[in-house]
């Protein structure tokens, strides 16, 4: 199907961050939706894993490590030739949640970040298995303290409730069995608890019923029972629905739209790139229902803003404003992750966004980068500014309000502020806050 510039901007916003005019034009030139999807899913230009400046050692100072790593990631999101990679990494970062706290440090989170990057487009079961024994997760959900006779249910519960299945497809008895299966998967004292170790003496090998099968379980076998065994279909629907919700519009695992995509995912051998492509090539992704259906999270909005205004993480003071937005990378508030849409609509969020936008306005004013707008007629200045933000179909309400603002400014001989004021007002518009 032919691709309009509106379609191209939709695909760019959902699979990346901003939709700059040149990126929109490049996608339109591919000629079709399918070709555009293949283009954004081509990750061959992604910088290699070895270039990551992320140390897994215990940092001397978690705060400076957090600042460094968050700055690095935001800059990568802003400048990468393959934004899909960062978007998908952000998805898994917020799915298999581990966060900086008194016990999980930035070195462990760097390790988890590497694990996600290495496995984000391969087989799903391999990603789940790798995350389960990653030190950040072992500490975050206490499984390193899970031992025979005294099972720790924290990881076992969340792996089924939040990560892989959703409530309703397992029982509390299954949680207990899963916890037993994962006894003994701990950290190695010899590396001062920085690496995974299987401690056989801590493992409970007694025979228990788990999701319909009674036997002696290892942890990995138990996870395979969830994602590839008796609950394979439920598990595929769960993660398909979550990823579809991130790319297209919020759905529940039981919704009909999930069925064919989850089947394609299973047929691919749980290949995660196949899942992403099945979502992006579905009619639902391009449907009117998907347009305007997602609110940009503060992180997505910040990166898109930096791209549109050519600001950096430092010059925009992005980390400072993310701290007031409730969305700081590596500091997800709880194991269920940041949510969508209404979660990001509040007066507090409006004020946080305004603080970023106010600072951006000052940057634009002093750099004179948008001064060309100051001499244009109001309507032309507004349309030019909207297109720089990748807004191909502005709301008539927004456009009218912006034109009135420019007219009022010109009448008061404040046209020198036209460009900076347009930049700020558009940042705060619903047009730019929707993904």
């Amino acid at each position, binding site marked *: 199907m032919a691709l309009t510039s509106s379609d191209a901007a939709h695909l760019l916003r959902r699979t990346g961050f901003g939709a700059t005019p040149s990126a929109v034009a490049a996608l339109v030139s591919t000629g079709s939706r399918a070709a555009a999807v293949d283009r954004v899913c081509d990750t061959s230009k992604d910088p290699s894993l070895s270039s990551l400046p992320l140390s897994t050692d215990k940092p001397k100072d978690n705060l400076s490590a957090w600042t460094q790593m968050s700055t690095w990631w935001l800059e990568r999101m802003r400048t990468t030739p393959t934004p899909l990679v960062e978007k998908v990494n952000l998805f898994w970062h917020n799915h298999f949640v581990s966060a900086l706290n008194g016990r999980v440090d930035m070195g462990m989170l760097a390790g988890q970040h590497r694990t996600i990057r290495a496995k984000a487009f391969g087989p799903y079961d391999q990603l789940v298995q790798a995350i389960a024994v990653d030190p950040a997760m072992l500490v975050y959900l206490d499984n390193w303290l899970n031992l025979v006779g005294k099972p720790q249910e*924290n990881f076992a519960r969340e792996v089924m409730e939040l990560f892989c299945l959703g409530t309703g497809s397992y029982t509390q008895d299954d949680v207990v069995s899963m916890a037993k299966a994962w006894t003994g998967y701990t950290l190695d004292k010899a590396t001062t608890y920085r690496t995974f170790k299987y401690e056989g003496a801590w493992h409970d090998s007694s025979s228990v019923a788990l999701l319909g099968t009674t036997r002696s379980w290892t942890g990995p076998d138990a996870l395979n029972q969830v994602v590839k065994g008796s609950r394979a279909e439920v598990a595929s629907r769960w993660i398909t629905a979550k990823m579809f919700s991130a790319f297209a519009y919020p759905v529940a695992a039981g919704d009909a739209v999930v069925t064919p995509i989850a089947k394609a995912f299973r047929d691919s051998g749980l290949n995660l790139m196949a899942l992403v492509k099945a979502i992006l090539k579905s009619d639902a992704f391009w449907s009117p229902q998907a347009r*305007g259906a997602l609110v940009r999270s503060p992180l997505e909005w910040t990166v898109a803003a930096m791209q549109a205004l050519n600001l950096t993480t430092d010059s925009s003071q992005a980390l400072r404003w993310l701290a007031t937005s409730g969305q700081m990378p590596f*500091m997800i508030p709880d194991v269920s992750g940041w949510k969508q849409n209404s979660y990001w609509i509040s007066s507090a969020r409006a004020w946080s966004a305004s603080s970023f936008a106010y600072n951006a306005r000052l940057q634009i004013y002093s750099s004179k980068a948008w001064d060309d707008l100051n001499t244009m007629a109001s309507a032309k200045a507004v349309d030019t500014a909207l297109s720089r933000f990748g807004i191909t179909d502005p709301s008539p309400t927004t456009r009218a309000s912006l034109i009135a603002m420019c007219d009022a400014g010109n009448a008061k001989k404040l046209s020198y502020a036209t460009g900076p004021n347009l930049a700020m007002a558009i940042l705060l518009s619903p047009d730019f806050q929707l993904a």
Partner: protein
Amino acid sequence: VHVDDLEFEEALPLLSVAAEADPDGISRRRFVQGAVAASLGLALPLLRPRDAGAAESAAPLGAGEGVLVSVFLGGGNDGLNMLAPITGTARGHYERLRGGLAVPAGALAPVGDGWGLHPKMAALHRRFTAGQVALVQGTGLPLQDLSHFTAAAKIMQGNVSATSGTGWLGRFLDGLPDASGGLRGMAVGTSVPLSLVGAQSKATTVPPSGDMWGADRATPGQGALLDAVAALADRPTGFGRWGDAIAASGAQAIAHAETAAKAFRPDPGPGGPARDLLLAARLINLDLGARAIAVTIGGWDTHAGQAGVHEVLLQRLDAALEVFFANLRPDLRDRVAVLVQSEFGRRPQASASLGTDHGNVQPMVLIGEHVRGGVVGGAPDLGRLDDRGNPAPSVDFRSVYATVLERWLGADARQVLGQSLPQLDLFEAGPGHTP
């Protein structure tokens, strides 16, 4: 009610509450927020509110109208160590189940019936002795699973059979004539907790950072910009519900910025529960007509190494409650009641990692000058635990809500909660009366 039974987008804000489910999560985050600003060499706040605020249009509290402050302890407070048995068979069971986590009998401050408050809650105990604290023992409801998110959904909705995605305080606000302007319900934080989500009513979330664009209309060039952003909500955006909600939220933030900024003068001090509760007191003191204010304190999910962590959490809570009452305007003290609750209590049996897993029953705490002091409900029977190791609830938690709604907030509890529930004896008099 399971999370995936709820309408997806509607259910999501509630999860912001079970939020902060990680020990140290919140305090750490707050610390880093402040430190990030400092490390970047930034002075806070950028947008300094001016002193004289424009008059707000909201009506102040009417005669006899009460205010409820809802303090939610996210993660699952170990109520059995906050309020523990001192003597009798309950003490024997407690020591056997808790082992080294048991609070020594001699340290507990007696409240009658052989139970006592944790020694770190000394200020609360003084208020209890003065007859201003009701301790409601054994609240809970039968839970199908012990998930944070299912439990938080039920507790915050206050309507176990409904799937509407509104909260009990939000539905109370829906019944007020002028609750769509955003000043009848307020939250201190970055998102609206489910308890305050109404069908029509809107809550204003006051960011702990205090950065609120719109508080400084006098700055040259600000007026036209503020008007332009507010005007984005003048007519439907054409983008559907989320676009319209973003525009409305931006306009609401601008309308309330000058007023809310007053709560930040003088500087409310370092981040944490004491700052949040001080802000809550100041919002009440401004007499904007707020009837329900929500504050969330995170970090209570003590699966491992609980003893020291829980003690600090209780100490901070105790201190924060004192800050709240010490700063409340004396003429409004007989108008305010504080309800302290969590999504659930924790299991009586300590875990091997010296913590506690998710439980069911919890004591709720109601504080205020017109509260009828004493212990209400039935203490959990530690000698009769169910197959998951939890005692049976003795009080449906919605009876607490029904009493607060009828006796304190002057609402029709049956309408708000969807059914009639037995009332408890929790108040000596309604708000503003002379007892």
